[in-house]
């Protein structure tokens, strides 16, 4: 098991839990897509899974529910151990969160420089390979602010893949991109998956991308995840709220 959440409860205030008793498992090679209404905790769930947010306390004062990363409870093990575990994941944030005063090349090299003793020329060679893989050739010396949104997203993706992770978290990887760039992004994610069989947990409103990546969709409704379904199953779902979310997705895609 790569990551697992059991009975997770989270809210920005105790009385308003947006995630309430949520369970999730991601296994090696899985592609899981999280859909649902905006502002209902999908991105927060991703942050909870790597320990960037802390679940609400239970009645005893400890965190409610458990989050396991590579089999270890991240709220039980020391912080240093959590950082060790995070070396095995990649995370693409919705706003890309590239370090603004570093070039694209340095952004991609950062985790390798920090975590390995590899010589710098080898690190830069590896970073350049990711730059080529993600169609950023010629932009390696630019600062993130000088790139288009699509390029920034691909640079964030390259950084996430730099340490050859076993699991990648993608928070809205196509948000804000035009149709062509969305397609390029999904195609690159598909290629990376084909190359490395990395497991993917992706938050998106573009539920049809599940088709493309061969993944199954969990809808986040009422603070809990519905069982994983295919896109076709959701289109024909007897639950009107599920059909509504898929309809919204189709309208977003096709206007």
């Amino acid at each position, binding site marked *: 098991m790569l990551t697992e959440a059991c009975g997770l409860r989270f809210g920005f205030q105790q009385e308003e839990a947006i995630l309430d008793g949520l369970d999730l498992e991601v296994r090696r090679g899985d592609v899981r897509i999280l859909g649902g209404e905006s502002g209902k905790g999908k991105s927060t769930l991703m942050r909870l899974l790597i320990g*960037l947010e802390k679940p609400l306390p239970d009645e005893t004062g400890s965190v409610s529910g458990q989050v396991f990363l590579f089999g270890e409870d991240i709220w039980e093990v020391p912080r240093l151990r959590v*950082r060790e575990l995070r070396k095995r994941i990649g995370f693409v944030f919705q706003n890309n*969160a590239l370090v603004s005063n570093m070039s694209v090349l340095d952004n991609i090299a950062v*985790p390798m420089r920090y975590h390995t003793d590899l010589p710098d020329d080898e690190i830069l060679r590896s970073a350049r390979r990711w730059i080529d893989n993600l169609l950023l050739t010629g932009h390696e010396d630019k600062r993130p602010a000088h790139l288009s949104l699509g390029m920034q997203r691909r640079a964030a993706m390259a950084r996430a893949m730099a340490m050859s992770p076993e699991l990648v978290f993608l928070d809205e990887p196509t948000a804000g991109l035009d149709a062509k760039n969305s397609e390029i992004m999904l195609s690159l994610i598909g290629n990376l998956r084909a190359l490395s069989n990395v497991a993917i947990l992706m938050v998106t409103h573009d539920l049809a991308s599940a088709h493309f990546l061969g993944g199954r969709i969990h809808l986040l409704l009422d603070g809990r995840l519905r069982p994983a379904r295919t896109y076709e199953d959701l289109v024909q779902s007897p639950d009107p709220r599920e059909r509504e979310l898929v309809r919204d997705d189709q309208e977003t895609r096709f206007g």
Partner: protein
Amino acid sequence: MTFGIGKRIVGAITWIGELWETSLPGRAGRLLVQVVASPFAGRPATARQIGEIFLQQTYYTAVEAVPIIVILATLIGGVTLIEFATVLPRVGNSDFLGDVMVLAVLRELAPLFTAFIVAGRTGSALATFIGNMKVHGEIDALESMGIDPVRFLVLPAVLGCTVGMVCLSLLFTASALLGGFLVAHLLAHVFPGSLGLDMELPLYLEKVSGALRLMDGLIMVLKPAAFGLAIALLACMNGLSLGISSHEVPQGTRAAVVQSFVSVVAMDGIFAAIFVIPQLTGVMP
């Protein structure tokens, strides 16, 4: 009865502990402990991890501030020397010019004025830089890669600012003592007889160097180092404590600068208590 008193004592200690935890010295102290521990947490820190930001910070703190420090120090040194050179003969103590210049410039003016410049330039820039990283999710991105922001950002920034502050304070001292003399000497030539500054440079230098003691050397390094450390820690602490909204960045910057000014003056008082008061009372030579 005994149990009740014990409970109250424990309660009072807990309350003091909580108060300390949330106070400015408590929070800065906690960050300092993290900074000191960070090179040894996990894989030992390498020069590659901290070198680049350390060099950038030292360059920004020390090298880029050289012109403003030299100009400011020369003017302040000149004014101070003219004042002392004018006043000391009136009280019949011209021989103490070297002592008072060392005391005023080296012990007080250089560390304080340099700290104010560093707090205004480096402290504000560092708080803004880290604050922007925080609100734009870059700190979270570092965390998501298993990178400790304290080791990666705060440690090299604190080291760079501390080293830069010591270098600048030494430069301020040299500029104030020498440049100040030149300014005052020039004025003495323009207005002959109006100023009591009638000595030549070799004699002046002899007076100043004769007034220097080991304690002055210690103060010359320890004070600016402590000020630089405090300024960098407060800047990083305020930057890291921001939330996710851009409007918090200027507030964090303002807090960092104001806290730095107050802390530097408070620490100056502590240094006086440690180094000067024992000398006055004869405890220390």
